[in-house]
């Protein structure tokens, strides 16, 4: 069986070599990079534009963006037929290809996020290392921790006020530089699709901008959702622990979801959502009006075969419903949770309709292909490019975040009591 045959159904006339070659992992790739870029932009709102109300969520989204970063690369790696050669893209890039710039965009962005994180958390590293150093009778894990935090300081132990002021300045510089790089990283993912002239659905110069706007939407949505979820989980855990140790603070005393942070971020989310929706509808309108030779088949797909996916799930439930939920007065936490979940689903469906939809018709414009998502894998390929592979990619950032949170504590309990 050749690659792609296991999940492709052909209808009418399709060239013999045509299959759905870019599958769910390529849906996950722009979805994950979008979350990375969006989360970073959200954290920059606080650092660059000084929107003080976003302090909590900014720190959270910066760490989350870092946790998402390695995961943005995994779908690409999983989809390669020769994953062991994936590194060649960075080692021997062929610069006429849009993909070749991936290494540069990705590593530049990675370095910016890492250095910004370092400046934000340097004080924490120094204090933790010093506190552990002063402690007597250390256990082995504590010794390890001390070593780790000492190494993380990179030898910069000065936490005087001037030094910290300089750190803050550096954070601002990094956050400022990070915004265009984050947009580049994701806009460029849009360019990878938008520049494929052979694909009638993908080819549009608007694609990078559509990608950036939807990235900001999804990034903010995920950060808000996780922010609410972690705050609520913390509250539950404190209540549970308090049963055995009444000296702990009550759930009412610890910090909970700050509603103004949610409403504030929701505003930015709505703006980005409107921009993304506007661009997408402009693209659709232009195609409908210009009626290129490919329009007939694209039209039959968008308005016919994929109508439910495009207009009901993506635009309707994924965009318009959450828009209404956010815009209605007196936003509550529960409503915000529902709206962010719907937004995330909407952005995912946008990627799906683009990647899978773009391959759903033959380059001969005379036939269709259907992607049957492999649910129960029967070999490594149907695992990688099926539901389980996608779920793996979806779960990994949360595992990374949990690990990173041990080094970069997002919520400092000592602040509150």
């Amino acid at each position, binding site marked *: 069986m*050749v690659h792609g045959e296991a999940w492709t159904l052909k209808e009418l006339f399709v060239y013999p070599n045509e299959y759905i070659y870019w599958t769910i992992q390529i849906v996950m790739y722009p979805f994950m990079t979008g979350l990375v870029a969006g989360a970073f932009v959200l954290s920059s709102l606080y650092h660059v534009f000084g929107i003080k109300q976003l302090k909590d969520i900014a720190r959270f989204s910066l760490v989350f963006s870092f946790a998402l970063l390695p995961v943005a690369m995994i779908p690409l790696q999983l989809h390669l037929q020769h994953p062991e050669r994936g590194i060649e893209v960075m080692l021997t890039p062929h610069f006429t290809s849009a993909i070749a710039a991936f290494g540069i965009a990705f590593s530049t962005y990675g370095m910016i996020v890492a250095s910004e994180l370092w400046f934000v958390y340097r004080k924490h590293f120094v204090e933790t290392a010093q506190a552990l150093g002063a402690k007597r009778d250390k256990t082995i894990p504590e010794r390890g921790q001390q070593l780790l935090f000492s190494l993380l300081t990179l030898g910069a132990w000065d936490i005087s006020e001037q030094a910290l002021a300089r750190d803050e300045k550096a954070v601002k510089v990094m956050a400022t530089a990070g915004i265009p790089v984050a947009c580049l990283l994701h806009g460029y993912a849009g360019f990878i699709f938008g520049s494929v002239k052979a694909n009638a659905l993908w080819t549009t110069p608007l694609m990078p901008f559509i990608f950036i706007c939807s990235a900001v939407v999804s990034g903010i949505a995920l950060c808000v959702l996780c922010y609410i979820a972690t705050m609520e989980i913390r509250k539950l855990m404190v209540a549970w622990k308090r049963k055995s140790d009444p000296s702990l603070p009550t759930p009412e005393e610890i910090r909970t979801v700050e509603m103004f942070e949610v409403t504030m971020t929701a505003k930015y989310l709505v703006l980005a959502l409107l921009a993304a929706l506007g661009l997408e509808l402009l693209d659709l309108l232009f195609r409908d009006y210009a009626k290129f030779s490919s329009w007939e088949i694209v039209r039959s797909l968008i308005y016919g075969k994929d109508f439910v996916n495009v207009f009901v799930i993506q635009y309707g439930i994924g965009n318009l419903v959450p828009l209404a939920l956010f815009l209605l007065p007196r936003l509550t936490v529960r409503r915000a949770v529902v709206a962010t979940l719907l937004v995330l689903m909407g952005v995912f469906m946008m990627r799906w309709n683009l990647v899978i939809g773009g391959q759903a018709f033959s380059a001969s414009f005379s036939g269709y292909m259907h992607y049957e998502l492999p649910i129960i894998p029967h070999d490594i390929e149907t695992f990688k490019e099926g539901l389980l592979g996608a779920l793996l990619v979806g779960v990994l950032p949360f595992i990374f975040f949990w690990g990173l949170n041990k080094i970069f504590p997002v919520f400092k309990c000592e602040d509150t009591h």
Partner: protein
Amino acid sequence: MNRRDFLKNSITVIAGLAVPLSALELISPRKLLATKGDESPVRWAFLVDTQACVGCGFCVKACKTENEIPHETNITRTWVERYVVTRKGKTYVDSPRGARDGFTTDRIDQGEEGFREVKAEEIEKAFFVPKLCNQCDNPACVQVCPVGATYQTPDGVVLVDRKHCIGCAYCIMACPYGVRSFNPAYKTAEKCTFCYHRISQGMKTACVDACPFGARKIGNLRDPDDPVTKTIMSGRVGVLKEQYGTKPQVYYLALSREVK
């Protein structure tokens, strides 16, 4: 000279040098070769006579054997399409298994939709069109390969380096003609090479040799006496999907407008 002056002067010299140096371009070997005026004496091109093709599929079978593409796999470097145009102007196209076994039934293969019967009296015209890589002058597949594993030889043929291909499928996406696929054994991009291992040794491609009707011909565009070149230059030939700007080098005699 103290250290400060030394550094100052060095910076001035470097800055001064940078201006004239920036006027120079990095020299690419290809450009250098072009200035010498000796462009390759060979440019391979293909000529397909759609009126001569009967859809026997011998070319497809020969290609699979020659290039070690397993016969049972559903990919092929070359294939033959059948076009059936009805009196009402409807066009039906099929290419069952790339026409590896020819066209053994009158019914049109419509994939998941099953087979379609078109009555003989409804048919206005019907014909066969062989397809293969167009070895474009401006190949989109070469442009998009992120590692340069697919490249164009000086005589115009696009090849794939199986030791270097990472299997990202970007080239497959970029080809408007659908000629690329994945080789099931090597798991690398697979395409027609005009049987480069044969033509570079003075032989014809496997499909040209296998065609009993002379519907397929290969020639050198740089040789004005080559009969293929003569037909391409003086005959009325068409190419596929010119609108993509890829400058395809497979020319078709009697190309009908229905051909996709």
